[in-house]
């Protein structure tokens, strides 16, 4: 009647607070509970009664790592309510801003949060002592992303220059051109990062995930496209609520998301890569193939290589936009509110971020719904841990905790966003 509990009371190197309990009975895993106890912050309630113009700035405060994602999803949803589209150089500047966020967010995760797991270090600080050159490279890549955020967004964290219809101020051609030398360095550094991460040892864990990502007719996805999946979903973002549902579970302050009638699904870099491999640039595709990465990739531990590939792609895309930029005639297009509901999804670094707003005729927000990627991935994280369970129970406790945390960090979870993370408990019953 051997019962065992593996418990991680606090998960490190993730954004926010959570814990993990694995229950084991007679050598078999009987349950996995990922508990998110970061308090809910009630942003959706905070938005009610506010002007639609405030939504991009308020929602950006949900996360210090992916504020651009919140600004982009809110802008596109609210512009959709107004029946407006932003095109031309303003659209390109939005993509450039998103490039900056992907580069800085992925670089932080690859070099300081996730690589230590693969190389056997407790954290990025201890890894920096033995691998100073790679940590410096990672910090410089992150800085290159932050420089884009500072220039287009007005500052590195919680940008203040984004507004409905575009921006408060747009950069001059020469201001953007000043980014080119560092982005050219970053292109070579990103190639090195793909090669470096491909040398890591990867635990053997493959599952039959339903990958879900945006797909655009021509581009690797950021702000536009249909929501598609490897199990047949193909829908407009406005139809999101018809196909996905959120359920409350007692153990978590985050709502869990499911495909209606089917269950868990997986968002983020691997899903984007598998569904949009043909939309990558030649350079990024070749780097991925040379690193042994081809779709479909079903091993979430290899997400670190995919993030490196996405850094490479984002640097190339940023260079393309910067080199072809011609300033728009006005920094934003004028919009008028109307009583309507607007919905949009964009690709945050961690996956699809869905926003829905109902407005009155004056542009006051009557209702808001925000579904961040980490809460959508939570069921998939638990299933990965169920699959890993038999191996975890055979491991010494410290190794089990290490492997479980590493499996969770595959998702680069952002619990602050999801609270809507990790202490590991294995209960042997």
């Amino acid at each position, binding site marked *: 009647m051997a019962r065992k509990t593996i418990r991680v009371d606090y998960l490190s190197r993730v954004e926010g607070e959570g814990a993990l309990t694995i229950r084991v009975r007679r050598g078999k895993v009987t349950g996995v509970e990922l508990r998110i106890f970061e308090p809910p912050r009630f942003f959706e309630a905070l938005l009610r009664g506010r002007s639609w113009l405030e939504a991009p700035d*308020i929602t950006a405060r949900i996360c210090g790592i992916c504020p651009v994602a919140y600004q982009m999803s809110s802008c596109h949803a609210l512009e959709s309510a107004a029946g407006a589209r932003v095109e031309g150089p303003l659209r390109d500047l939005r993509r450039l801003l998103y490039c900056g966020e992907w580069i800085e967010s992925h670089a932080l995760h690859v070099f300081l949060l996730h690589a230590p797991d693969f190389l056997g270090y407790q954290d990025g600080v201890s890894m920096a002592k033995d691998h100073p050159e790679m*940590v410096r490279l990672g910090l410089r890549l992150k800085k290159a992303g*932050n420089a884009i955020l500072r220039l287009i967004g007005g500052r590195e*964290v919680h940008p203040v220059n984004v507004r409905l219809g575009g921006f408060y101020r747009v950069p001059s051609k020469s201001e953007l051109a000043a980014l080119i030398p560092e982005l050219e360095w970053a292109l070579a550094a990103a190639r090195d990062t793909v090669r470096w991460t491909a040398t890591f040892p990867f635990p053997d864990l493959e599952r039959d995930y339903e990958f879900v990502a945006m797909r655009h007719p021509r581009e690797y996805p950021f702000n536009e496209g249909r929501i598609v999946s490897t199990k047949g979903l193909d829908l407009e973002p406005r139809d999101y609520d018809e196909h996905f549902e959120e359920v409350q579970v007692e153990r978590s302050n985050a709502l869990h998301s499911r495909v209606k009638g089917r269950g868990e699904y997986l968002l983020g870099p691997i899903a984007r890569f598998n569904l949009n491999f043909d939309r990558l640039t030649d350079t990024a595709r070749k780097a991925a193939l040379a690193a042994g990465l081809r779709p479909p990739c079903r091993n979430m531990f290899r997400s670190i290589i995919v993030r490196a590939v996405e850094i490479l792609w984002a640097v190339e895309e940023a260079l393309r936009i910067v080199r072809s930029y011609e300033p728009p005639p006005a920094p934003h297009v004028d919009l008028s509110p109307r009583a309507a509901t607007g919905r949009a999804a964009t690709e945050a670094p961690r996956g699809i971020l869905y926003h829905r707003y109902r407005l009155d005729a004056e542009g006051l927000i009557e209702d808001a719904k925000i579904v961040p990627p980490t809460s959508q991935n939570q069921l998939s994280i638990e299933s990965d841990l169920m699959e890993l369970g038999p191996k975890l129970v055979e491991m010494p406790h410290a190794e089990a905790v290490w492997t479980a945390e590493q499996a969770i960090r595959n998702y680069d979870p952002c619990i602050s966003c999801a609270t809507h993370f990790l202490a590991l408990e294995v209960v042997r019953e």
Partner: protein
Amino acid sequence: VRAQVFGIGQAAAGDDGVGIEVLRELRRRAPEGGAPELVELADPMSLVPHLEEAGLAVLVDAVVSPGPPGRVLRLRAEEAAAAHLALVSTHGITVLDAFEVARALGASARRVVLVGITIEPPSRYHVGLSREVLDAVPRAADEVLSVLRELSGEERGEESGQQGGEESAR
């Protein structure tokens, strides 16, 4: 020796913005041309390259504490890191993690001091400081200036000691 004061925080996360507010107070007091370099930071990791270059550095940040908010603490950064102070983080990385990374990369830790202002855990979107933390801003600014005077004095003492040593050696 280059002296820099770094104010770290988020103005829209209530009392977490106190580091930024202390920098504003120092700007108001600064004599023309005589002020230390004041740097506002929201992302702790962007501190690393600054610390690799800085001579004297004072880090001003909010410290989450179960005690009353508005107390002003002063610690050498390595002492603060060893004490595992609860600083507010971005993606689990605090200003002291950034200090440790900079030190691992070879930055000198001799002249890095943390001036911390205790706050309750920030949990809501909120612009502006609580009364207790706002009242601590002038005291924290006094502490920063006092730290800079002492660090500069130590630096001068070491320089003259080195010169004296060289002279005696001659």
